């Protein structure tokens, strides 16, 4: 089983840490990850199209005394997520070779545990087991987040990360407890069946609100995203890429899994819930993209970039339709490797020049042409220039929103992609090409750029002409993978069908509880490359380039334009920046308020 292998190897590595040579240890770790890729791929193929696999641990299958034991129940989406994670984890492991000198096998162990945990989460069919792995992946990340233990900003970020995330876990657990108390079951399918027969559903809604708050904290949805940006800004690259590419997205997966398996059908006012979720996603996306354009610290830039995209993911999940889900899963599939590649490029820069600031790095990236090229490809893939990279998924997502009557999401998407795209182009232009005038430090900029001094990267790259292969290779692979996936034909239609399966509650229940299997009607497979997707994608690309040029050559703009834009732009921005205070107690307050708002929303949707 793919979950157990990384655990076993992690324990083994730790056991033999004093004996094993660095190379052997690294090789074993990577071999394990590759093995997990193999197993996950096998599982992925094994899952029948639009079907699922159920596996009961310890032989406690439901014929004996009801669904008491723990099961794994997964379809292609779950297996695919596990596969994706395994690929990314092997990137992280290879990239992490450079850390061995300092940390020994510890980092490898943590990455492996993380991999095992995510795999478990994406496959499990039991609520508490899900929680267990949820927490496990968190703990692996906590350990890594404090890697640069001599840097106060990193430590501070790590503390907010741990505290806020622990709150997420407790909220989740509180929700589980309420559910358990009402249904006396922990198996998702069994809970669902019991709830459907139970008269008092108010409790379930409260439970779901608490659980969702936990998931959205993890998914860095806007009122809850502060910890993520701080942690991402100071995390060592292996953690950074795992966190941004799968770690947070799992929060949304959790929401989707719980919603479709348990709660769908409980809400009286479905539309209210949907509007709330989509709105939340939209806000997330816009705020993320604005902050992204404003960021000068490269890692924070990528962090806000991720927040913005997660907003769109939430829109897709929040549409609560199979089509939206299909869009998100495709989007995610192309986005995750691309963003990991971006982060690895940033990591190489940091390792080489010991700086994260776009301002300080101006023009210096010319010494690393390969890294620059990879960064450019990864940018194209993650912006989703038609027809590459994230484009297909986003087109599907937009179609889903239009079909559900949310035309304004198209505007949000164009805005978000053009702003984030511009941010990437500006960064790339400045760092790798030395475009534009040498940017001056703005007043108050040290505040933001100063967080994270790049101590989190392994030393030893100074004075080398080229980045070492083990850093470049996974970066290139990530960018390539993202592009390649988008070129696979008919992926969209397949994703749609699988999403329909994921969202089919009765089929899920039937499968897990081994009743007669109900046949799912296959969804109509329409042509996906809509004109909508093409023109919105093209428009945002053009806009991105335009904005980027405008910012880079700010001096050439007419002065009235510059002044007016600045006047419009500065006050809200200053306010937003003040919110990102880096203080744990502020973040806790935001969590409390956010949870309350979310609860209110669920309540409104229920009554």
């Amino acid at each position, binding site marked *: 089983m793919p979950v157990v292998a990384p655990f076993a190897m992690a324990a083994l590595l730790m056991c033999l840490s004093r004996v094993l040579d660095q190379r052997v240890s690294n090789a074993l770790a990577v071999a394990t990850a590759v093995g997990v890729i193999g197993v996950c791929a096998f599982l992925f193929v094994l899952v029948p199209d639009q079907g699922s696999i159920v596996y009961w641990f310890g032989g406690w299958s439901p014929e004996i005394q009801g669904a008491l034991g723990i099961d794994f129940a997964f379809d292609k989406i779950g297996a695919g997520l596990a596969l994706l994670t395994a690929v990314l984890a092997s990137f992280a492991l290879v990239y992490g070779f450079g850390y061995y000198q300092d940390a020994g096998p510890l980092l490898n162990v943590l990455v492996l545990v993380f991999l095992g945990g995510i795999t478990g989460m994406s496959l499990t069919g039991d609520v*508490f087991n899900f929680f*267990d792995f949820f*927490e496990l992946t968190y*703990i692996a990340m*906590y*350990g890594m987040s*404090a890697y640069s*233990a*001599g*840097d*106060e900003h990193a*430590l*501070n970020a*790590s*503390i907010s990360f*741990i*505290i806020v995330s*622990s*709150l997420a*876990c*407790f909220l989740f*657990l*509180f929700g589980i*407890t*309420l559910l*358990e*108390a009402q249904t*006396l079951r*922990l198996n998702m399918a069994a809970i669902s069946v019991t709830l459907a027969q139970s008269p008092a559903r108010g409790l379930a809604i409260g439970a779901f609100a608490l659980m969702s708050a936990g998931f959205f904290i993890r998914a860095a949805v806007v009122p809850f995203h502060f910890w993520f940006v701080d942690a991402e800004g100071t995390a060592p690259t292996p953690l950074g890429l795992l966190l941004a590419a799968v770690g947070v997205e799992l929060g949304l997966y959790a929401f989707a899994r719980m919603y479709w398996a348990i709660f769908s059908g409980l809400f009286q006012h479905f539309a209210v819930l949907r509007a709330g979720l989509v709105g939340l996603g939209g806000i997330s996306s816009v705020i993320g993209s604005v902050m992204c354009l404003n960021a000068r610290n490269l890692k924070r830039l990528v962090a806000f970039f991720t927040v913005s995209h997660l907003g769109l993911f939430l829109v897709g999940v929040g549409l609560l339709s199979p089509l939206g889900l299909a869009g998100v899963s495709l989007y995610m599939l192309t986005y995750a490797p691309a963003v990991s590649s971006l982060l690895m490029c940033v990591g190489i820069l940091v390792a080489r020049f010991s700086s994260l600031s776009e301002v300080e790095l101006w023009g210096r990236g010319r010494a690393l042409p390969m890294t620059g090229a990879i960064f450019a490809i990864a940018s194209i893939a993650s912006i989703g220039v038609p027809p590459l990279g994230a484009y297909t998924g986003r087109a599907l997502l937009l179609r889903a929103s239009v079909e559900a009557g949310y035309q304004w999401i198209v505007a949000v998407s164009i805005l978000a992609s053009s702003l984030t795209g511009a941010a990437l182009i500006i960064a790339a232009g400045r760092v790798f090409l030395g475009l534009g005038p040498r940017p001056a430090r703005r007043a*108050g900029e*040290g*505040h933001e750029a*100063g*967080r994270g001094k790049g101590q989190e990267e392994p030393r030893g790259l100074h004075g080398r002409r080229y980045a070492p292969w083990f850093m470049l290779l996974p970066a290139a692979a990530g960018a390539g993978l993202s592009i390649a996936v988008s070129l696979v034909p008919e992926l969209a239609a397949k994703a749609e069908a699988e999403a329909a399966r994921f969202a089919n509650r009765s089929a899920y229940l039937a499968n897990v509880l081994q009743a007669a299997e109900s046949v799912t009607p296959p969804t109509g497979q329409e042509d996906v490359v809509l004109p909508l997707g093409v023109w919105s994608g093209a428009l945002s690309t053009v806009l991105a380039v335009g904005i980027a040029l405008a910012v880079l050559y700010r001096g050439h703009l007419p002065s009235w334009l510059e002044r007016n834009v600045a006047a419009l732009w500065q006050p809200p921005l200053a306010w937003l920046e003040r919110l990102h*205070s*880096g*203080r*744990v*107690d502020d973040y*806790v*307050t935001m969590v*409390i308020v956010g949870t309350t708002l979310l609860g209110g929303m669920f309540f409104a949707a229920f009554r």
Partner: protein
Amino acid sequence: MDKVPYLTAGWVFLAGLYGMATSRNLVHQVMCLSVVQSATYVLLLASGYREGGLAPIMIGARPDNATFVDPVVQALALTDIVVGAAVTALLLAIIIRVWRVKHVLDPDALTRDES
């Protein structure tokens, strides 16, 4: 009256949160965090309690139709306690590091000199 146990859990949860949001010291904050967590134990166990139920240990004489309190929630609470211990230990380790670098534990002082 029969809701007191549940409300206790809610109360403990809120009290811990309040402490965390107003904390002036990281060590204090960590202890408040574990207070929040203890709310989940209380709720778990309270929800599985059964009037007249026996502790889930089947040793010694017991009537044939004896009922037990729910062992599943107890097992979950055990897991939960381990998780709590693990998180607390990690946080303490990081706090030791913070202290080494800054010699303060007040979140105010930790972020003040940023710019």
